[in-house]
């Protein structure tokens, strides 16, 4: 039995050694994608293109405009002369945000009253719009508070109400600066591993089916289980290698702190890889050609990615979808990898995820083996 598995392993590595493009596909895309995700995948909003309309033309209105411009969150792309120009700038996507200071803005402020400020937001990208609006609120709020304190001092508290406010003392644990890269980089490791290894496994088996070598192997005394082990084990090692490389890039290039125990992550990765290999194997039993495998991979991996909690919070999904996430191995692995990375927790905390992952992995593998044996008929 071991002799036959070893023969398959040897053959698999021989083929891999000879296939330059496969080696390239193994190493380069994950690193490139890691770099892309590391740099491009961020929720933070800077340099929102902004158009200004100052209808007040006072020292106060100019000071407010300045505090927007100097915030680095907003970039002034145009100064409008009337409302129509503001609308045109947003409609043509020249600006995403329009700020209108209405006439009489300063007069109200000087009397110690609230002064309205109009903000128009292009809501097409709802996420950016919300965040930009939040910043606009912060900046105008700070401006108003400073102005009120200043006015109160100058008028001996006759004007400008003394402000009573509750100040939040915020402490963000595990990611004190809410750096979204810290959130994404560990997630990318899981996602990339899923995509690469499912693809490799599915294609490797479907290729043998397509070429006819699968049939030739199956008339030898080899058992389906032996074939499956010999065929998936190489990709298990490749998966581990890939996780190591991408993790190294995350730690040393992006400087995402690794707080936990590498062995815990390794153990979680092994459990995750079992599920991943099983999914690749399952896809290969459903497909006769590599083209079908390509289409199926896309159909299966994309939902797994969306439902994993990689970027969209599972808690806000409709209940039916939340149920589906329970069978998504990536969901559990993301929890494990983020927790070991950022929180530094160990198996004592993560055992429920690990146990679920193991159950999912062996369950999926069992189904895959059954299906594989049946697919021969």
């Amino acid at each position, binding site marked *: 039995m071991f002799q*036959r598995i070893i*023969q398959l392993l040897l*053959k698999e590595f021989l083929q891999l050694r000879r296939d330059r493009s496969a080696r390239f596909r193994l190493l380069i895309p994950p690193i490139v994608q890691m770099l892309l995700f590391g740099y491009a995948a961020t929720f933070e909003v800077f340099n929102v293109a902004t158009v200004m309309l100052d209808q007040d033309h006072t020292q106060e209105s100019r000071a407010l405009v300045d505090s927007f411009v100097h915030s680095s969150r907003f970039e002034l792309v145009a100064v409008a002369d009337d409302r129509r120009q503001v609308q045109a700038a947003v409609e043509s996507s020249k600006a995403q945000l329009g700020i209108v200071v209405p006439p009489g803005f300063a007069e109200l402020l000087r009397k110690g009253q609230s002064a309205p400020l109009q903000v128009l937001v292009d809501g097409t990208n709802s996420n950016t719009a919300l965040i930009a609006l939040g910043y606009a609120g912060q900046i105008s709020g700070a401006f108003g508070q400073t102005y009120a304190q200043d006015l109160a001092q100058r008028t001996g508290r006759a004007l400008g109400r003394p402000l009573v406010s509750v100040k939040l003392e915020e402490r963000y644990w595990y990611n004190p600066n809410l750096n979204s890269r810290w959130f994404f980089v560990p997630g990318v490791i899981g996602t990339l591993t899923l995509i690469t290894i499912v693809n490799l496994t599915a294609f490797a088996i479907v290729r043998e089916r397509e070429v006819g070598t699968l049939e*030739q192997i199956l*008339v030898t*005394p080899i*058992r389906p289980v032996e074939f499956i082990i010999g065929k998936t084990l190489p990709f298990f090692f490749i998966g581990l290698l890939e996780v190591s490389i991408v993790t190294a890039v995350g730690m040393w290039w992006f400087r995402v702190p690794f707080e936990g125990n590498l062995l815990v992550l390794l153990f979680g990765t092994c459990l995750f890889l079992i599920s991943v290999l099983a999914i690749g194997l399952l896809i290969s039993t459903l497909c006769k050609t590599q083209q079908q495998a390509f289409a199926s991979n896309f159909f299966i991996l994309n939902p797994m990615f969306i439902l994993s909690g990689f970027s969209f919070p599972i808690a806000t999904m409709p209940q039916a979808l939340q149920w589906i996430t329970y069978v998504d191995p990536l969901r559990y692995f993301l929890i494990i990898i983020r927790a070991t990375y950022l929180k530094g927790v160990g198996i004592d905390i993560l055992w429920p995820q690990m146990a679920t992952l193991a159950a999912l992995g062996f369950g999926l593998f069992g189904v895959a083996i059954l299906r594989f044996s049946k697919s021969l008929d």
Partner: protein
Amino acid sequence: MADSSPMQIVVDGLVKRFGAFTALDGISFGVAHGEIMGFLGPNGAGKSTLIRILCGLLRPSAGRALVAGIDVAGDPEAVRRRIGYMSQKFSLYGDLSVVENLRFFGGIYGVSEAEMPERLRFAVDMAGLTGREDALVATLAGGWKQRLALGAAILHRPAILFLDEPTSGVDPGSRRRFWNLIHALSEEGVSILVSTHYMDEAEYCHRIALINRGRLVALGTPLELKQHSLGGELLALEGERIGEAIAPLARAPGVRDVAMFGNALHVLVDQAALRLPALLALLAGSGIADGRGRRIDPSLEDSFVHLVAAKLPPTEVAS
């Protein structure tokens, strides 16, 4: 067990159904030690299905198949240790070298390390690839690939060899060399079961099983099939526009079957000498002025057409 029976393969009432479709419908036959048994039949007749069942790749729906004395459905792994299999699809790894392919399949079959060098040399010699052991298989021409595949299939010295249309897509010279190898193996006592749709190849077999629509239509030596399966004597009629005479000939007394063979009509009659003059007269009467005819010895193709494909248009039989 294997030695107590003179037959290496015993097939008894084998049935295979795929859903509502019956691919094999109660097939029975036996193959002796060292016998070359040819399966002849049109595409889709069930030849490949039968071979795949005997190799343990498919489970029979009913009936029994003993290979080397072992029930295939009961212990397919034990059967697979004793058989070699080569399919119409080329099935070695193109990105591995000649010797890497052989070593891999040898290893899977459990050829011992001590025996491996000798078996590798044997297979390489047999394929005529001495000196090209390190060539990638993808770079070999069809005939070499096919002989190499045969070499890989017999590395473990199987007692029984299954060949599923092994020579499709191979040039005639390579086909002849291939059949020489098959006969050499048969002389060593290997039983060989080969499917083909080449008539000339079927003549190389010791016995032929004609299969059509999942049924065994005829079984015998090529000579027996040719002489007895027709149930009459054969006339070849030639002439301009001879095809137009098919319908009137078929209605003529003593005529059992009429089929187009190239430019001639082969007419099966009860007694050739008795019927020929009347048929020639009928040709003349049908406006075929230069009609001529003679008695011929039936070929395997005649038997095939008569037994299997009588209802099919002639083009589907010629291959």
